[in-house]
């Protein structure tokens, strides 16, 4: 592999050996060849060509575009001064414009730091008419609209507070920063999935389509933003791609488009759920809720609920207290009544007892009086004693104690004769110290 620039090695060797077996003359140094090529191309006939302008690009000193038609294209270059000198109305030379150019072939051999370029060097130019580009776009737009594809995305539910957002944008562009700024304005800091894709040139449309489909397939994705900074219609033409637009139209996830063309709407703007003028606005459309304000509101709501809750709890406590006092008061009344009854009963009982005592006392007194009035004094006692003594003398027990025995029959009747004894047969002899049973030997029954 040899480098393009001269190395020390190659300077030392004048010329390397040719390829083994090659019939071609040479080798010659490439720079020399490039210079000669330019010379040869510049000698070709200068002529006029017509076609459509495509990918118009301006630098400080040069203007570049492709001149195209259905069969092929030519890269064109023009001095900016030459273009300005034409005095065209601003914007007349734009993508899609039909032009006639005059000039000749040229070749830029490149330099140490810039690449070589082949081009048709334009020295004269005339606008011939509006290009086919816009007409094509118009036809496609009518077709998709006719199929009702401008409707489905707009009917999708867009969450007010998504947790996960997908963003399709160019990796290096300003659009990325603008999207972040828009989300920061909303106070939103959730999950962001970046899908970087080229956002112009002919590779863009399929890559953007793929990115949108992959994002929509991710779990949890609630909204997709497709953002690009401004540009010419040709730059944005990838967003008019039929496949991309059909895919977005039927996507289950809402798409917010911000592809930034100031005069023409791209087809993506028509099929998307929302079309915004800038990536910042697109971010705000993706998160409709102003999160910082919402947090404040929720805090306020919580406070209001707490106030209502406290009042209600106090009210309930009071109501319960009232209810709970009622039985207590009732009990208190009952208790008082019971105490009263008890006091009365006790009082009544005390009175009853007192009455009884009084009565008893009165009776005792009466008895006492009776006793006293019966005259049971000393004299009477003496006489009683005497009588008791006499009685005692006659007490059969005394007789038994003197040694005599009382004879009874088993039934307890007295037996006072032998004949009666013989008749009874069985006798009971009662002595002073007890009784014994006896049998009569000479019983008449025997």
């Amino acid at each position: 592999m040899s480098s393009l620039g001269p190395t020390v090695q190659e300077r030392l060797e004048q010329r390397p050996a040719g390829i083994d077996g090659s019939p071609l003359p040479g080798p010659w140094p490439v720079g020399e060849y490039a210079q000669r090529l330019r010379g040869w191309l510049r000698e070709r006939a200068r002529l006029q060509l017509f076609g459509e302008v495509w990918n118009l690009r301006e630098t400080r000193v040069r203007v570049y575009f492709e001149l195209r038609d259905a069969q092929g294209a030519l890269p064109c270059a023009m001095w900016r001064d030459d273009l300005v000198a034409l005095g065209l109305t601003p914007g007349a030379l734009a993508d899609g414009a039909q032009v006639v150019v005059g000039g000749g072939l040229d070749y830029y051999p490149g330099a140490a730091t810039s690449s070589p370029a082949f081009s048709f060097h334009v020295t004269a130019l005339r606008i011939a008419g509006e290009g086919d580009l816009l007409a094509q776009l118009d036809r496609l737009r009518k077709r998709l609209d006719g199929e009702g594809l401008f409707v489905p995305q707009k009917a999708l539910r867009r969450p007010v507070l998504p947790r996960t957002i997908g963003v399709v944008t160019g990796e290096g562009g300003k659009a990325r920063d603008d999207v972040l700024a828009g989300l920061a304005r909303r106070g939103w800091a959730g999950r962001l999935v970046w899908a970087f894709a080229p956002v112009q040139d002919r590779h863009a449309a399929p890559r953007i389509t793929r990115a949108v489909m992959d994002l929509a397939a991710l779990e949890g994705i609630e909204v997709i933003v497709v953002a690009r900074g401004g540009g010419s219609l040709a730059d944005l033409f990838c967003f008019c791609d039929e496949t991309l637009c059909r895919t977005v139209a039927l996507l289950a996830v809402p798409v917010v488009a911000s592809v930034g063309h100031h005069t023409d709407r791209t087809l993506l703007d028509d099929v998307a759920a929302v079309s915004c003028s800038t990536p910042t606005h697109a971010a705000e459309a993706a998160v409709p809720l102003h999160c910082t304000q919402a947090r404040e509101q929720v805090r306020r709501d919580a406070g209001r609920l707490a106030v209502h809750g406290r009042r209600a709890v106090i009210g309930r406590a009071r109501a319960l207290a009232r209810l709970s006092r009622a039985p207590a008061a009732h009990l208190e009344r009952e208790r008082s009544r019971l105490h009263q009854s008890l006091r009365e009963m006790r009082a009544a009982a005390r009175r009853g007892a007192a009455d009884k005592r009084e009565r008893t006392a009165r009776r005792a007194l009466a008895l006492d009086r009776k006793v006293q009035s019966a005259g049971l004094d000393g004299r009477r006692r003496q006489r009683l004693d005497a009588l008791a003594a006499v009685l005692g003398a006659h007490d059969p027990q005394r007789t038994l104690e003197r040694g005599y025995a009382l004879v009874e029959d088993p039934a307890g009747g007295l037996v006072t004769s032998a004949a009666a004894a013989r008749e009874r047969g069985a006798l009971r002899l009662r002595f002073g110290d007890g009784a014994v049973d006896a049998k009569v030997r000479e019983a008449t029954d025997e």
Partner: protein
Amino acid sequence: MSEELSYEAATERLEEIIKRLDSGEAGLRETLDLCREGRTLVERCATELDAVGKGLEELRLDELVARLENGAGGGEAAR
């Protein structure tokens, strides 16, 4: 059931509840019930807002896709 309630629906219901409470027409029982429901809704909204308030989590689709494909590498060796 509250998991299915969207943020918008939750805030709408919360607004209704607070309006009713502020009106002073709710009785004691209703007030307590509404306060309880309201607290649940407030928590739901706060949870949603917290989920997008901790810090931006940035992912790349190309990395996610690569991870997916590498993860499935074992069964896709034939590719």
